[in-house]
């Protein structure tokens, strides 16, 4: 029996403490962003200024780990320089790879910094090997992050037909829409993940206790209402309850997390090269809990030998930090679609 090819564990860091926590708990790579709209987690108080970036990279590199920078939103004409400037800063900092979505920005990065490693962001919406190979042929990307829409067999098909390393989401908040192809937030608030780096941004969110229950509104639009004691979710508009016909239900998606822990041996077998943990907006406590579990699980798979067994405690720990305290295999499990 051949041992599987190594899988990198790629963990989120919204702050320097989260970065250190991820490294200390066994992340191979951490991914992070600058404090602006150049990345898809543009939230108040989150992300890295230059000083924290420099210290974070030093901390990771001293321990032989990598730091990836998400520059995965789409620049507009009038703010183009902010994005190219971010690519330049990344190169100066010695970032191990930049995660990009915009083809123009990729062309810029490839030309200006020929040695900078490029990853295709999930925001690039590349779901087929033809799409991924487009970025490979034109910009020499080394890795692509797949949107959370493909079944396991489809992921395998992609891997078999591209020289590009494939990274998939393993755990965390679940975008039910194809990343990069969702303007729901722009429709409701004028701010979108594509252009502003935020979905359902906090400044448009209001929570209010009313006689009918706890109501959550996005720019005035009622997203959900929770009875006392009922578990709450983010007011992300695709995870609200709405009326369709005579029914009121989670018409698009329940507040739930993606968890593919049980698929890990399969992901390793088909040649997935990296597992991404979602959650740069989450705290260092979340990063610690999730990184620890996934490190142990990946180590167990890579050790080979006896059949892969999931510890009860792992699932309990992951469910605890999940939205809705429940999880799904998402599109990897075909009937979910």
């Amino acid at each position, binding site marked *: 029996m051949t041992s599987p090819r190594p899988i990198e564990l790629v963990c989120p860091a919204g702050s320097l403490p989260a970065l250190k926590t991820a490294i200390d708990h066994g992340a191979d790579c951490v991914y992070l962003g600058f404090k602006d709209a150049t990345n898809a987690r543009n939230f108040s108080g989150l992300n890295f200024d230059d000083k924290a970036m420099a210290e974070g990279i030093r901390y990771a590199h001293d321990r032989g780990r990598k730091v990836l920078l998400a520059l995965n939103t789409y620049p507009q004409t009038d703010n183009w320089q902010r994005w190219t400037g971010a690519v330049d800063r990344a190169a100066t900092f010695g970032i191990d790879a930049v995660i990009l979505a915009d083809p123009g920005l990729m062309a810029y990065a490839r030309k200006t910094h020929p040695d900078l490693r490029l990853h295709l962001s999930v925001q690039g919406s590349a779901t*087929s090997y033809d799409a991924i190979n487009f970025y490979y042929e034109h910009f020499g990307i080394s890795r692509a992050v797949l949107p959370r829409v493909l079944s396991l067999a489809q992921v395998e098909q992609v891997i078999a037909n591209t020289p590009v390393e494939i990274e998939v989401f393993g755990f965390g908040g679940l975008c039910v829409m194809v990343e990069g192809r969702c303007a729901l937030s722009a*429709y409701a608030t004028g701010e979108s993940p594509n252009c502003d780096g935020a979905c359902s941004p906090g400044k448009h969110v209001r929570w209010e206790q009313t006689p009918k229950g706890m109501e959550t509104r996005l720019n005035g639009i009622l997203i959900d209402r929770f009875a006392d004691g009922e578990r709450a979710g983010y007011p992300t508009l695709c995870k609200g309850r709405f009326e369709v016909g005579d029914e009121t239900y989670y018409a698009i998606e329940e507040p739930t997390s993606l968890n593919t822990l049980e698929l890990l041996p399969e992901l390793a077998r088909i040649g997935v090269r990296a597992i991404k943990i979602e959650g740069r907006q989450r705290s260092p406590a979340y990063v610690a809990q999730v990184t620890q579990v996934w490190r142990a699980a990946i180590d167990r798979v890579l050790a080979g030998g006896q059949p892969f067994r999931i510890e009860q405690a792992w699932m309990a720990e992951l469910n605890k930090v999940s939205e809705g305290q429940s999880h799904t295999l998402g599109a990897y499990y075909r009937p979910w679609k």
Partner: protein
Amino acid sequence: MKIALGPLLYYWPRQSTLAFYADMADAPVDVVYLGETVCSRRHELRLPDWLEVAEILTAAGKEVVLSSQVLVESESDLKTLRRIVANGSFRVEANDMGAVRLLSSGDAPARNWIAGPTLNIFNPTTLSLFADLGATRWVAPPEMSRDQIRALRDGLGHNMEVEIFAHGRLPLAYSARCFTARHYNLQKDTCEFRCLQFADGIPLKTREGAPFLTLNGIQTQSAQVHTLLGDLPAVCAEGVDLLRVSPQGQHTLEILQIFRQALDGLIPPADALHEALPLLPAEPCNGFWHGRPGVDQHIPA
């Protein structure tokens, strides 16, 4: 200013679809986009059928474009895509980067394809790159504002036709999951083709009963109908080349006629909007054009 009929986003029975396009042969529309862009399970018309419709419309003097599927997942999706790209007669609208690759590579790359609204082209550097690969028309993402579109055009060193989404429920999001099947507690693979029952998709309301979105299989649309009828002077002033009208369950022909008359100066834009209102399946909106939330109606209807 040309009027383009966007691809049919809903799933109508075969006869309704054929009758619709037969009407379009005589409609005041210059360009017609054809093909299934939303869901690969929809097969009332297959590619050979679409090609037949394309021939008829071409004979009627329309420019026909074949639109590719937005979300490509399976090997069979890729096969269909390859056949569309290799059709040999009609221009192709690329709606994902796989389509761009197929159009722009090989022995005889296409030199006149259309960069679709889902390619996320937001700046001149990116659009130039696609121009170099043979794109000659760009359909702006619906979420782009007038100012953003103008800035992009001003920064572009290429000749490029510009098309904007001018009328219809906004295609806002795509998913692996089918929300129509979900509504009926069915799985996507055994969806019983419930989309066939809804000529304009399924309305979704908030828990206060306010119209919010429209479920259309794996696609989510706005509940409100984005229309730039009331903004036509500004639209014309921008020098946009084409206005896209998205087919709706009823009255598409009348909407096209109103657009044509308004563009030709036969009716003032405010009257055009007023005349169109009873023909819409829901309230109007135009926020995106004005750089606001898409749901907003900036000029009171």
